């Protein structure tokens, strides 16, 4: 077999059926062999960043690793932002890039770049393959590393002459990685202690992150919350892990979280953090975060997260699902009376700090669009959001009665993520409705992938929240940078209906609240991709928001006179 054939057969052996890629000089041997492997369905993207985001959306929606092909030099470098996005959010990807011939590496040959060096800080691991004998082993290891422990992207850079060399591979069964020990059985005694602490606490709160979703621990989370009668919120990446319409839901936490969540976190005496990193967007000013907590419990699969930002009293290194399932039988339900005042207090905060939006200025508001979209989602659709105000509006108005998939670039905050990720998600879960929520600024960063949606007739509906500006940046400039509006005007944008039509899909322009429902009706009736350009209030802001540099207690809300 040639190295290229070994690559493709190895992918089949790993159960891969979908590849997002782009051919070029240094991976042509692989593309030459690709038609011989019909089980590997290849999606030709329009830009390699799109391939990485598609593979990312595919992985998040399916739970299986996404696979990316790119050529050397610029091709591989175009995947870096996508790899970083997956790395920050712990998403399993395997990227296979072509590299110059082994004897040309290091000579600044055509389309040669140090992809190993460039991708090192944004991958869980990477490999340079200079010997055909190594391909089968390396691919097997890469999938193992990408999918086990805390998942993440792995890049394999394969020299072109290695793809062309001949070798009869021995397919490896065993993995020999002496420095990689990802399986942790949770410490039972710690979980017993955690369960007892949860029951004993007077004002407990659970916060759930992406780890709950990645481990498939949503049902276990609900059971633990219910049995221990503990109010439960999520991080931005954890949205969807816990039903928002559950009576114990605190919805989203963090510096754009709900008021009742922030009040609960700031007054809790116990905080159990599950599958999350406790980053700066969760805590805002760290020294003022959760000041009344006497017991921090941290459950995470990555030991390095223990004490990285917050030093827990109880550390449990395990995947969230296993930890929660193991903890569940240890929980002794608290006396109902012992929780009454805490739950009553939270209900009161929920009434005092509801989600509000501007209803009085005659403009269509983004929330008008989100509320109608979520009505149609029926607690089932996959929603993929981009980055910026659209992301927070989509997260805050999420209202599912059961766990669901809300996909966004929470860690890296990559504009342009949503649309290609939605393509990947739809390919992974064709039975699900997929809505892509994006601002016009982020959407045009990867809009060329419209061709892919059209080519594959993908039923992805794009909800463009178009405010003719970089809305989040504009809001920050208004509130935190002296009101100087600097380089945020996006009034020179394409006519999105014509843009859609130019790519071969229908576009709908919506300018009034009355047009929202008919537009959604039309989009849902129309098979294949549809773009709806919602021209929202250009001054719409995200609320609540914690002013930069301040603690969660200081969150701002929309003043009542606008609501």
């Amino acid at each position: 077999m040639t190295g290229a054939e070994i690559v493709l057969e190895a992918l089949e052996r790993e159960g891969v059926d979908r590849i997002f890629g782009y051919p070029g000089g240094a991976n042509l041997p692989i593309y030459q062999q690709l038609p011989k492997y019909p089980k590997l369905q290849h999606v030709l993207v329009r830009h390699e960043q799109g391939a990485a985001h598609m593979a990312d959306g595919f992985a998040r929606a399916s739970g299986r690793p996404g696979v990316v092909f790119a050529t050397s030099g610029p091709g591989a470098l175009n995947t870096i932002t996508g790899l970083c996005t997956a790395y920050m959010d712990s998403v399993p990807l395997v990227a296979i890039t072509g590299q110059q011939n082994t004897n040309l590496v290091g000579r600044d040959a055509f389309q040669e770049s140090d992809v190993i060096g460039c991708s090192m800080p944004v991958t869980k691991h990477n490999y340079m393959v200079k010997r055909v004998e190594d391909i089968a082993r390396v691919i097997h290891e890469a999938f193992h590393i990408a999918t086990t422990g805390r998942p993440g992207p792995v890049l394999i850079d394969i020299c072109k002459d290695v793809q062309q060399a001949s070798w009869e591979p021995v397919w490896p069964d065993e993995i020999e990685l002496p420095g990689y020990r990802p399986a942790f059985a949770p410490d039972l005694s710690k979980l017993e202690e955690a369960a007892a602490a949860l029951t004993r606490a007077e004002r407990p709160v659970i916060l759930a992150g992406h780890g709950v979703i990645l481990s498939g621990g949503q049902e276990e989370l609900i059971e633990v919350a219910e049995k221990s009668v503990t109010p439960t919120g999520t991080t931005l990446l954890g949205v969807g892990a816990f039903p928002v319409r559950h009576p114990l839901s605190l919805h989203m936490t963090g510096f754009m979280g709900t008021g009742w969540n922030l009040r609960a976190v700031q007054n809790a005496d116990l905080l159990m953090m599950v599958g999350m990193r406790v980053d700066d967007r969760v805590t805002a000013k760290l020294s003022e975060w959760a000041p009344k907590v006497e017991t921090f419990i941290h459950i995470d699969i990555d030991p390095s997260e223990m004490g990285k930002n917050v030093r827990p009293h109880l550390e449990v290194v395990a995947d969230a699902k296993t930890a929660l399932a193991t903890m569940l039988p240890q929980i002794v339900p608290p006396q109902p009376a012992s929780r009454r005042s805490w739950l009553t207090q939270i209900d009161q905060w929920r009434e005092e700090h509801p989600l509000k939006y501007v209803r009085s200025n005659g403009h269509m508001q983004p929330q008008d669009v989100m509320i109608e979209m979520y009505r149609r989602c029926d607690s089932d659709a996959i929603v993929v959001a981009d980055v910026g105000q659209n992301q927070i509006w989509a997260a805050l108005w999420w209202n599912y009665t059961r766990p669901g998939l809300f996909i966004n670039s929470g860690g890296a905050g990559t504009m342009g993520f949503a649309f290609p990720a939605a393509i990947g998600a739809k390919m992974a879960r064709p039975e699900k409705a997929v809505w892509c929520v994006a601002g016009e600024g982020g959407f045009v960063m990867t809009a060329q992938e419209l061709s892919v949606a059209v080519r594959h007739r993908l039923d992805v509906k794009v909800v463009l929240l178009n405010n003719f500006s970089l809305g989040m940046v504009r809001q920050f400039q208004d509130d935190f940078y002296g009101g100087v509006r600097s380089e945020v005007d996006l009034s020179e944008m394409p006519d999105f209906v014509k843009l859609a039509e130019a790519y071969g899909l229908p576009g709908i322009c919506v300018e009034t609240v009355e047009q929202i429902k008919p537009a959604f009706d039309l989009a849902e009736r129309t098979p294949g991709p549809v773009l709806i350009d919602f021209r929202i209030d250009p001054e719409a802001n995200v609320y609540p928001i914690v002013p930069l540099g301040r603690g969660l207690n200081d969150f701002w809300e929309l003043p009542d006179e606008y609501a």
Partner: protein
Amino acid sequence: MSTHDGIHRESAGSESRLRVLTAVVEDHPGVLTRVSGMIRRRGFNIQSLSVGPTDAPGRSRLTLTVDAGHAEVDQVQKQLDRLIEVIEVEDLTEMPKLSRELALVKLAVTGPRRDRAVAEVDRFGGRVVDAGREHVIVEVSGEFDRVEGFLEALRPYAVIELARSGPVAMSKEVQQ
């Protein structure tokens, strides 16, 4: 504002920021880049680093002195441990350990000055490893303070070149 134990209140306390670690790594190309890249990316700083083979084929041992910077000090070990090719890491900072640094010093000394210099070298357990008409090269090995003292003692004697290694270190404990 409470000051309970759970949270790092901006500064990370008075604990020493310098960590001495030893790591056994796979002897692959690029491993050192991974280690040093991670250290830079996390805001740590390498004070010294030495690399050498171990008794096991395909394995190297690193000895590192790392300033944890603004991070929690245990992060240095934990982040090293996350690297796939790092097989084991020990933080020796608080452990009984042996540490050795090596210094080579070239002195431009002749006559009685040379005799006095060599006497200083003897006093520190060092030795003369090369001698010419105009110079001697001497060496000493020992813990940081001993090497420092040695260099201090030689300062009056026209030091014309100095080469000094970082430490290699080993725990005194016996692990089965």
